[in-house]
């Protein structure tokens, strides 16, 4: 039971991180029908910017643990959002009217570019977050001890997702995003500035992805310039499992995937952990070809 609780809480934490990344994929897909392959690299960028702020600039040493990490979270989100916005301007906006496959290749090119830019800037070897950034405390919870880091990361992810949920469902901008996702043409006719909506989506998505990168660094320690690829693929899988374009779906898919992976690694095989993700994906899509939750976007014929 103890083992199960540990794996379960680990799965929730990893799932929260996947969900944060998946939200970026699903929002961009919802509005632009584009798989943003560079999103995984924005996630990596977040991890590295966080590394620079926390380890090289020693934010926690100067500002104290809580404030330092808080400032780092905000700065990382801001900087990665900026990068995401630039990416959209340079690589995607000119292709908005072209064939979808051209946009996919442009995204792949941007992904290769960013990955190598990160490698050239921070080096090809692994970097590691220091272990003492967050206080190394374990919480007693229902008779089980769970590390504080894990709880904090999970709560952060949940809080951000909740805020996003409210933003999408309760504000005018959120309504515009939902409208643009359902039918861009109709949204334009209703006076919605779709370009502005896409810009907003490309600020929120990367900000969440960058935050996820920082959280991964805090949770695991070592980071690597190529890590965005696998995280990106898994998060995209999570978005698909939940029904791409559906924001709640990405949250559910991310958490589900984290749990499957963590429990699968514990009870089935560690070596097959990554394969399990895709097996689950295939099984779910065979049973429900458009994901678990219904897709929000109208089918393009």
């Amino acid at each position, binding site marked *: 039971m103890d083992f199960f609780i540990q794996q379960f809480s680990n799965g929730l934490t990893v799932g929260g991180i996947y969900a944060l990344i998946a939200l970026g994929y699903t929002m961009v897909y919802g509005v632009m029908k584009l798989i943003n392959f560079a999103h995984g690299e924005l996630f990596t960028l977040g991890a590295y910017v966080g590394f620079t702020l926390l380890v090289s600039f020693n934010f926690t040493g100067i500002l104290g643990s809580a404030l330092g990490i808080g400032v780092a979270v905000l700065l990382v989100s801001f900087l990665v959002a900026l990068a995401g916005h630039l990416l959209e301007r340079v690589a995607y906006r000119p292709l908005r009217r072209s064939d979808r496959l051209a*946009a996919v290749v442009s995204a792949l090119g941007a992904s290769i*570019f960013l990955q190598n830019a990160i490698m050239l800037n921070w080096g090809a070897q692994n970097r590691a977050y220091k272990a003492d950034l967050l206080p190394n405390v374990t919480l007693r919870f229902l008779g089980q001890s769970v590390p504080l880091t894990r709880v904090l990361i999970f709560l952060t992810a949940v809080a951000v997702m909740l805020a996003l949920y409210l933003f999408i469902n309760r504000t005018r901008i959120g309504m515009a995003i939902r409208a643009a996702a359902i039918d861009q043409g109709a949204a334009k006719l209703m006076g919605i500035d779709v370009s502005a909506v896409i810009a907003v989506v490309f600020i929120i998505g990367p900000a969440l992805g960058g935050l996820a990168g920082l959280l991964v660094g805090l949770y695991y320690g070592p980071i690597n310039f190529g890590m965005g690829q696998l995280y990106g693929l898994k998060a995209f899988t999570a978005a698909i499992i939940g029904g791409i374009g559906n924001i709640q779906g990405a949250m559910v898919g991310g958490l589900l995937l984290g749990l499957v992976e963590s429990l699968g690694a514990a009870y089935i095989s560690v*070596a097959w952990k990554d394969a399990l993700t895709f097996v689950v994906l295939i099984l779910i899509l065979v049973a429900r070809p458009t994901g678990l939750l219904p897709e929000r976007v109208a089918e393009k014929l």
Partner: protein
Amino acid sequence: MSFKLSLRALWDRRPRRLPAGIPLWAEIVGVLAFFSLPWIFRAIGLATSAYWLEVLNTVGLYAILALSLNVILGHCGMFHMGHAAFFAVGAYVTAVLNLNYGWAILATLPVAGLAAGLFAAAVAGPIIHLRGDYLLIVTIGIVEIIRIALTNDIFGLTGGPNGLMGIGRPSIFGWRLTRPWHFFYLIWTGVALTLILFHFLEHSRFGRALKFIKEDPVAAEGIGINTTRLKLLAFVIGAVWAGFAGTIFASRMRTISPDSFNFGESVILFTIVILGGSGSQRGVLLGSFLVMGLPEVFRKFQDSRLLVFGAALVVMMIFRPQGLIPPRPSKYSLPAPWDRYDGATPPAPGGGRGPGESPPWGKGGTLKGPVYRQSLAPTDTRGPLGADGAAKKGPSGLSPQTGGRDPQEES
């Protein structure tokens, strides 16, 4: 599947000019010059000739792979980003048969193709109906599953993360292929065969049905094309070919490991097809040279090479979203060529096919001649949003009647 064509028909369908207006004889001279490159290198005493031949071999191998992906992605329009999986199956089948059972490399070729094809049929069967992006992520998932399975030494045959070493060399009539220029001829003959075969495949009924599925799956289904079956068939054909390429790869490298077949390889193949011009053989060939060959030319830039490559992809897609050499909008003349060239009598009411030919999408009788001819009329693969307006130059995409002129189909 029927791409039976008479020799006369082939001759009449021969391409007469390149899209850029280069006459055919210049192209033939170019091909001959290319095939004599090993001798030219030797004649001018190029010190790095072995290196450049290896580069050309890599280009050729990727050209074969990309051309086989082109059937799936370019002609049929399925978003398939997992071609490396079939390539891996072929390479590993060859390696295992050669190392564990002592088969000759060339004897493993059909088995490798067959294994890759069967594997494709098995995995694609349940997922073939998925829509574009769902199919994309699933095919990526298949590549990852294969890579992980190979790394975990599945069945105790694949040698785990280190892979398999000491794979034999192919020998043709007792002549063992070892040196780069041997492989140059092997691989580029393979490329030539691939080009010829897939050219005819593209212009067969099967190929046209695939194009139709790409343009409008609902309409294709509507006139009686069994879209699921044809998509699956396209998938299997592409996979078989990738399996063959796997055999050549294994015997050329002599060492294979799971890392050779990762997601990145699939991305490269996908990029080659889209960058070159999805659905166009010349485009895919050019794409292979650019993606696999050009980075070698810029090897001195080392680390920033891939950075530039990524940026170049973005720029290329912005300025030429349809690819470097997009396929020409094809036109088909009436009556259908096989009616004329087979010397058959004018089509009987109810069927325009020559004797003994059955349509690829059913047992026959599902389609009536006139419907068939009009609906397989010309497609502009770029769709109405073609960026440079080139689409408008050709005959309007939807007019089926072009009179009795010679067909000017070119890839």
